[in-house]
Structures are given as C-alpha cells and as structure tokens.
C-alpha cells in the first residue's frame, strides 16, 4: 500500500486521533466500530456525520451522552443522502468550505430503503462522501435479509437461505458515473485509510463500501471479526477496488488474485459462519458457480485494463 505521498503506509503511521470514545454501545467485536474508527482517523475533525437508523445509531449510546466525537446527525432510515444534500448546501451558503458531510449508513439503509435518496444525491452532484458499512443484513433489528444479503444466507426472514442473489450496489453506484467509488474491508486498515483520504481530497459525490463481518449476524465468534473480513477477500467473496472517474483499479489482495494468486476455497469462509450452516453441497456448488462467474467477469475487465 502506497500513500499519496509515495511512502509505504503502515498501521503505525495511522493517526492516533480518536473520534470514537470508549464506552460505546456496540457489541463486543463489532466491525462497524472498527470501520468507523479508521474512517474518522482519515477524515478528521472537520467531518459532519449523518447516520440513518442502523447499528451505528445505537452504538452512539444513550442520550444525553454520545460516543461519537464529531458532530453527528441521526436521521430517518431512508433519508441519509438527502440529509447530506441539505448539510452540504447549508455548509456552502454559510461558507464553511472545509467541513465535509459524510453519510455513514448500513447496507439496509443503502441497498434498500435509502437507495433512492442516494441515487438522487449522486445525480444532483452533492459534494459528500457516502459510506456504506455492509454487514449484509439488518443487524440492528435482529438479522433480517437485506438487498446485500448473499445468496443462501440464513437470516430471520430467510429461514431456508436467501433465494436471490445480492444486489450489486457498488455497480449501481458506478452506473451513476460519479468521481469516486471504492470498496474496502476492515482487515486492511491501510487500504481503507488510503481510500478515505483519497476520497476526502476529491469533490462531488464519492462512495465507499466497507464489508463489515458481524459476529451476531453472521454467527461466528466475536474474536474473529478481522479474520472473517480477511478471509472474505482471500476467498474472493469480497473484492477490493476503486474507480476514479470511471477508471477501475483492483487493489490489495483482490488485485493479486487477478494477477494469478489462487483464491482460497470459499468453503473456508462459509464454514466459519453459522448463517451458512444449513447449506447443502449443491447450494455450495451454486455459490461457487456464482463466484466463478463473477471473477470471470472481473478477469475480463482486468484483462481489458492492463
């Protein structure tokens, strides 16, 4: 990982500034909190967070206290990107040009109920960063399926496993032709940090999605959050890339896969998670087929690129 300044970025280089205070309300082992800690290290103090209904609204802890140390506007589930347009417009008029509106939303609030507001804000060119921390389900309400829930996964509204494939939100966002789209995950903090920094320095709508493996939702041991995140990339279940003005570049381990590194067998990832426990061999075959198809497609693009 090479920083903007050309140096190799390491964990020790990440700032010690902390905007998430100790004693918040997240579950032990929460990926959303890890992601947000790193994100705010990159974005810094002059950030206004806009948070729709999701775990991150709860994580803040109870009024009259909050664990978030940047100004934070909680907003209705479906309205975060619209609210960001409002914040951005107000900042512009009040001449606070160095303050950045940042949406911090779950996958439910992004893929499903918040998609329209997101699409609207992208189309009208709102100057903000939209971040979706994707734990592939509605965790705040107790593990229901979302548009991001992968095929086959158990949730409390897909008892026998989800029958549909997940929506590809980052692709949908890309089809809006905005300046910056990127994917990340918590296991690679330098990558996440760099992408945030890069986004911060651009203008217009920017979108970053962070895979966030959630122990209670995915049913795995709370100490394995980071491991699960890493394995998602290594098995190809999650892909790291960024798209700058339409130019797609794979990053990190995902890039290495495209350069020839073997993808770890997806079973390794599936088996660690209770939500996939019910899968029959043929289901796993189907998942593999889908994954291969997806990577075939990436390979084509990648091949086309370099």
């Amino acid at each position, binding site marked *: 990982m090479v920083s903007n300044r050309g140096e190799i970025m390491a*964990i020790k280089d990440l700032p010690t500034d902390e905007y998430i205070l*100790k004693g*918040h309300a997240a579950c*032990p082992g929460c990926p959303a909190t890890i992601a947000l800690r790193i994100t705010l290290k990159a974005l810094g103090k002059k950030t206004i967070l806009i948070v729709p209904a999701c775990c991150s609204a709860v994580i803040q802890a109870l009024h009259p206290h909050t*664990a978030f140390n940047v100004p934070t506007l909680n907003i209705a589930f479906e309205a975060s990107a619209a609210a960001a347009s409002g914040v951005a417009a107000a900042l512009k008029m009040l001449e606070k040009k160095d303050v950045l509106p940042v949406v911090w939303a779950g996958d439910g609030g992004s893929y499903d109920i918040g998609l329209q507001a997101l699409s609207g804000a992208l189309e009208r060119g709102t100057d903000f960063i939209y971040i979706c921390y994707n734990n592939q389900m509605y965790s705040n309400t107790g593990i229901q399926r979302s548009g991001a829930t992968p095929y086959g996964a158990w949730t409390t509204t897909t008892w026998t496993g989800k029958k549909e494939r997940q929506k590809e939100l980052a692709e949908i966002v890309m089809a809006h032709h905005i300046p910056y789209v990127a994917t990340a995950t*918590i296991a690679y903090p330098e990558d996440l940090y760099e992408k945030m920094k890069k986004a911060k320095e651009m203008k217009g709508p920017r979108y970053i999605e962070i895979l966030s493996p959630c122990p209670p939702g995915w049913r795995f041991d709370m*100490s394995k959050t980071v491991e699960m995140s890493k394995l998602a990339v290594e098995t190809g279940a999650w892909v790291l890339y960024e798209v700058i003005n339409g130019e797609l570049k794979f990053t990190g381990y995902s890039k290495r896969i495209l350069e020839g590194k073997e993808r770890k067998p997806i079973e390794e990832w599936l088996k660690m998670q209770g939500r996939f426990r019910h899968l029959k061999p043929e289901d796993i075959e189907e998942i593999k087929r889908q994954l291969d198809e997806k990577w075939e497609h990436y390979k084509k693009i990648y091949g086309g690129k370099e």
Partner: protein
Amino acid sequence: MKTAISIPTEGAMGKTGTWRVFHPVIDLDKCIKCWRCWIFCPDAAISRNEHPVIDYDYCKGCGICSNVCPVNAIEMRREEK
C-alpha cells in the same frame, strides 16, 4: 428548548468493561509493537503509549486483539469474580 442533543462523553454507555467475560492480557515481552491490536480494537480500549495499554474500564473482552496479534502476545483469560 429540549431536543435529543447528546454530548460526547467517555463511558457514554457506562463502564462497558463490566460486559466482559474474558479479559485480554498482553505479554509485553512478546509484543513487537505492530499496533494491530490498537487499530482493530472496536472499543478503542487500547492506547498507544510506550507499548499497548488496555483500558479495562472499557475493554469488552471480544478477543480481537488476541486474534490479530501476529506474535500471540495477547492471551484471553476468564474474568474472575
């Protein structure tokens, strides 16, 4: 005028260290100061001093630090109460 305004506070949810069932113990002799435990702690309970220091008032005992430590310098021990 009263509305739902909240003030940034350490321990907004109280001393969340009480949620813990296991607690992490760092073997400083092993530690190579890679700071992985620090960056990955969801509770920001590890600080970057000379060496990593755990704030047991707030560590929820998830065990991530132990899991990510490249040199197995962190052991999770059952809480004694």
